[in-house]
């Protein structure tokens, strides 16, 4: 690295890292706030789960008094539900759940109907007091228990009417043994579970890429504007160092700070995501993708690195060019606020859907954005579809060279001092 460039990079990193706005706002704050958010969600979810799995009371108004009514109450008691049997009218009974709780009404003739082969009806009243998640969870729990009871009842009814038959064979005469074929090999995993896991694991890549690019662009765009505002740029332009070295010093300095911020963000974000999705993942089965033949190959990672580097350099060159033309830090921030839209658009589009299913016009627009390719490369780690990535790399190289050329052009002219690009309306 040339001496002048090295001096500029060291100064840039030192100056930025000592800036409380950068250190606290971009590195320490995300590193602390996201784990705190994750922990808070964990604590509240944990206590909710604990409470919702605790003792449950159901008021029962038994107007039937038959065999089925006894059976359902017995089933609920076996499942740790406290039953409080009420007497009197339905209007009196419903008052018991005015402040929250569950009332089950077993209408007259319920047992007779079911035993004679017609459908019976159980009425459930869920009392809402504060519309909390706990009330909703309790309702789901009662609903789930009664659904299980229905299964038990069906099996009992089948056994009574056809003692020699297997209720399961009658209820589910077909057994579906689903397998997913991955790279020509059948793997014992259902397509729904596989898709969920791939989506869940593929979520991190694009999000991290988006964070890196946005952070780097913000640092780069404001770094020249800070020099303008602090009145240090004019002096810097007269010392014996080439303008291109000043430009690259800003680039390398911004990348360094962005990478530090990224490390902090990735750790924080990983913790946050794992905090809020741990239950979701465990519910669909925590399956290692490598065990079903989805091991990302080294060339996939290499391509991802290349596209990420290309996107980073082109984003920084773009941010530096526009930041150079801004009058001050606020101007640079307002410009970047608009430029980051194409950075997060590919992530949003591709995180929620597939490129192939998007309308042709949106596909064309996304392919024209260089920041799309790292997201595609992240997805291709699993799909192995590298063709669009390779074409994208060539396109990105041209885009980056062109943007760097413009940045260098702006930087080597007096536009670096006289630039006044702004999205604010000029006063007449």
């Amino acid at each position, binding site marked *: 690295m040339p*001496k*002048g460039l090295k*001096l500029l990079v060291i*100064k840039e990193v*030192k*100056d*930025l890292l*000592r*800036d409380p706005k950068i250190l606290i706002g971009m590195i320490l704050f995300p590193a602390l706030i996201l784990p705190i958010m994750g922990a808070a969600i964990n604590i509240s979810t944990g206590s909710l789960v604990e409470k919702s799995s605790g003792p449950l009371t159901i008021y029962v108004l038994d107007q039937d008094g038959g065999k089925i009514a006894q059976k359902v109450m017995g089933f609920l008691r076996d499942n740790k539900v406290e039953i409080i049997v009420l007497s009197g009218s339905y209007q009196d009974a419903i008052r018991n759940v005015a402040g929250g709780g569950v009332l089950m009404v077993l209408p007259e003739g319920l047992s007779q109907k079911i035993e004679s082969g017609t459908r019976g009806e159980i009425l459930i009243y869920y009392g809402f007091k504060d519309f909390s998640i706990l009330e909703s969870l309790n309702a789901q729990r009662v609903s789930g228990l009664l659904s299980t009871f229905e299964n038990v009842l069906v099996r009992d009814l089948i056994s009574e009417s056809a003692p020699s038959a297997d209720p399961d064979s009658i209820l589910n005469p077909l057994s579906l043994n689903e397998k997913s074929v991955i790279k020509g090999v059948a793997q014992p995993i259902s397509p729904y579970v596989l898709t969920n896991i791939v989506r869940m694991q593929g979520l991190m890549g694009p999000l991290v890429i988006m964070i890196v690019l946005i952070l780097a662009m913000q640092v780069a765009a404001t770094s020249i504007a800070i020099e303008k505002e*602090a*009145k*240090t740029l*004019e*002096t810097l*332009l*007269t*010392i*014996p*160092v*080439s303008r291109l070295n000043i430009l690259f010093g800003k680039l390398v300095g911004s990348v360094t700070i962005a990478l530090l911020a990224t490390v902090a963000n990735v750790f924080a974000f990983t913790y946050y995501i794992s905090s809020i999705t741990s239950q979701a993942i465990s519910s669909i089965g925590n399956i290692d993708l490598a065990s079903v033949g989805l091991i990302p190959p080294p060339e996939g990672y290499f391509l991802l690195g290349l596209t990420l580097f290309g996107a980073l350099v082109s984003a920084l060159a773009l941010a530096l060019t526009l930041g150079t033309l801004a009058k001050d830090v606020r101007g640079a921030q307002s410009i970047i606020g608009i430029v980051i839209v194409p950075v997060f658009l590919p992530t949003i589009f591709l995180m929620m859907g597939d490129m192939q299913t998007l309308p042709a016009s949106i596909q064309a627009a996304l392919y024209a954005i260089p920041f799309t390719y790292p997201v595609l490369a992240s997805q291709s780690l699993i799909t192995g579809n590298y063709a669009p990535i390779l074409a994208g790399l060539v396109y990105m190289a041209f885009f980056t060279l062109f943007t760097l050329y413009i940045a260098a052009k702006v930087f080597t*002219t*007096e536009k670096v*001092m*006289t630039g006044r690009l702004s999205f604010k309306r000029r006063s007449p």
Partner: protein
Amino acid sequence: MVRVIVVRDLVKEYPGRRALDGITFEVEEGEVFGLIGPNGAGKTTTLRILATIIKPTSGYVEVCGKDVLKEDMEVRRLISYLPEEAGAYSNLSGLEYLRFMASFYYNDEKSVKSAIERAIAISGLGERLKEKTSNYSKGMRRRLLLARTLMVRPKLAILDEPTSGLDVTHAYHLRRVIKSYSKDYGITVLISSHNMLEVEYLCDRVALIDQGRIIETGSPDELKSKYSTVNLEDTFMKVVGFAQGS
């Protein structure tokens, strides 16, 4: 004598305005040359062109025989520029700032250290140089920046309003430093100022500039004598009056 600055027919146009309208002057080695004129006269534009920050629309400018347009990097090695509104990196200490700047001019640590020692002496800031520059007063920051400008002993020091906005104590210190440094080390100084007292004290020769044109050049004494005035302020008003009446 060796000519350090040669400016010929210098024109600078901005959209809708001509900032410099054919300026010509020369400055010899060791001279302290002042550009005097009202706001918007073209002083800062001239200094910025000599400092290789902006490019002229037409005309010729050289520093120590180097064309500022074609040999801008060589020119930057010969000059040291103090802008009118200059700052230091607020998150660096005064000493870190001086080291950062000196390192661009010297390749060996010994020379860098010598330059920093000179800057410590010039600034007179002592222990305060260890503090972040964000803690400095305006006067202290200006002393640091002048020290940065002179510590590399440039062939040409370009000083734009070096004492603008400073109190008497800081301004007095800076003027004495500029005068003694120029005299002791034969440094050529190009200075722009509104302060006529400062100009009379510092400059060997001055150019009176108005509306992008030089309207008179000479030593302060010559000009005062020519226009029968007691100070440069009166001289300037008289010359500007003549120029506008002509």
